[in-house]
């Protein structure tokens, strides 16, 4: 018999309590190695689009905020193109990276991203998805990174037609994927790792 010559993906391991050393060393107080922490600043003066702030906390099964989580986001630019060159539809906004990385605050666990509101991106069949931001969460005690999405509360019509949200069978859980408006241009997206309000996570 022939072989498919295929390898197995390297097994995931927890990012551990010291993930900051490798991923946000300046935040961890290790200065002078990298000039800035990767993904800390997503915006430039020339970045196109509406400025927004996305804040939140990650909670464990007792409702205690994680103070050691690392949160990453990946999103389209204001026109709905993923920047940097991996999007087949074009290069996107040259002044926007689309990638953000923040550590939760050491005391409160709160994270905050300064970014732009993403445009709409097509689903596989060409239908438009509602504007959304992909989240990836790692921490001590999380054995494999968790993927979820944040959608926008003012996009009721687009959310109702979104083919990914439509996959969620238990409709009361949809609220876990939709940020809460907190004043002009500010959104709160809290993530619950387990419990009654457990956030919907995706196997992508």
């Amino acid at each position, binding site marked *: 018999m022939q072989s498919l010559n*295929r390898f*197995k*993906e*390297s*097994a*995931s*391991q*927890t990012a*551990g309590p*010291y*993930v900051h*050393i*490798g991923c946000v*060393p300046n935040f961890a*107080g*290790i200065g002078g*190695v*990298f000039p800035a922490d990767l*993904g800390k600043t997503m915006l430039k003066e020339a970045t196109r689009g509406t400025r927004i702030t996305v804040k939140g906390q990650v909670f*464990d*099964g*007792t409702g205690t905020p*994680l103070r050691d989580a690392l949160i990453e986001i*990946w999103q*389209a630019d204001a026109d709905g193109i*993923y920047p*940097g*060159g*991996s*999007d*087949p*539809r074009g290069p996107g906004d040259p002044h926007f990276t*689309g990638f953000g990385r923040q550590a939760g605050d*050491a005391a409160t666990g709160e994270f905050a991203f300064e970014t732009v509101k993403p445009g709409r*991106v*097509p*689903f*596989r*069949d060409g239908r438009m*998805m509602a504007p*959304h931001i*992909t989240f*990836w969460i*790692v921490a001590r*005690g*999380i*054995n494999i*990174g968790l*993927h979820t999405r944040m959608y926008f509360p003012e996009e009721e019509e687009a959310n109702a037609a979104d083919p990914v949200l439509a996959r*969620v069978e238990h409709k009361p*859980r949809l609220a876990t994927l939709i940020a809460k408006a907190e004043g002009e241009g500010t959104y709160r997206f809290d993530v619950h*790792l*387990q419990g009654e309000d*457990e*956030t*919907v*996570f*995706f*196997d*992508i």
Partner: protein
Amino acid sequence: MRNKAEGAFYQRDREWHPPAFAPGYKTSVLRSPQKALISLDNTLSEATGPVFGHNIIGELDNDLIHNFAAPGESAIGERIIVYGRVMDENGKGLPGTLVEFWQANAGGRYRHARETYIAALDPNFGGCGRAITDEDGGYAFRTIRPGAYPWPNRPNDWRPAHIHFSLFGHAFAQRLITQMYFEGDPMIWQCPIVGTIPSREAIEGLTALLDRENTIPMDARAYKFDIILRGRRSTLFENRLEGN
């Protein structure tokens, strides 16, 4: 050259990876989702990913012996080179992708505010580095071999010597954090974090071999550590992602 988003990625083998809930590793108990993950065939949001250029990499980024050391000084410990390739499940090298690594010092002590181990800090060791893979997916860095250390789990648990790795690949669907262990370390088989991995085969896949041939005389031993990220389907006969 980077590939544009093409086919969707092979389904992740969740039986191969550690389960979210692994009570031997106590912290996972309250941090593990309990509801089923919602399955999602990749859209552009997962099949694309951030791109980092070689221009972000400084001269000493892949030299942990020197990148935090005072001028003329170097970190204390057994000097090693860690090298390997970042590939996908088809064995194809992934060029131009960021690899980040971090570790404890030779005494098993991390440079971190929450670290409580009594072992000494090394004033010349920070513990972080990064590299971008070459055209074949290759990477290499120089460091010291990290020490084993105790950690609060059961009353007397110890981590084997290890180096943490963060990988981006070419798409957010390939994002992975893992750890590298060292060939022949008996502590590997006693560690509850290693033990979250279901199979011996998968653990061995994270265990770097001493590479005697690439040892640098009178300087450093070499360890080879290849990393496999998810493979993606060929686009033959597949409905392509919109716009491709």
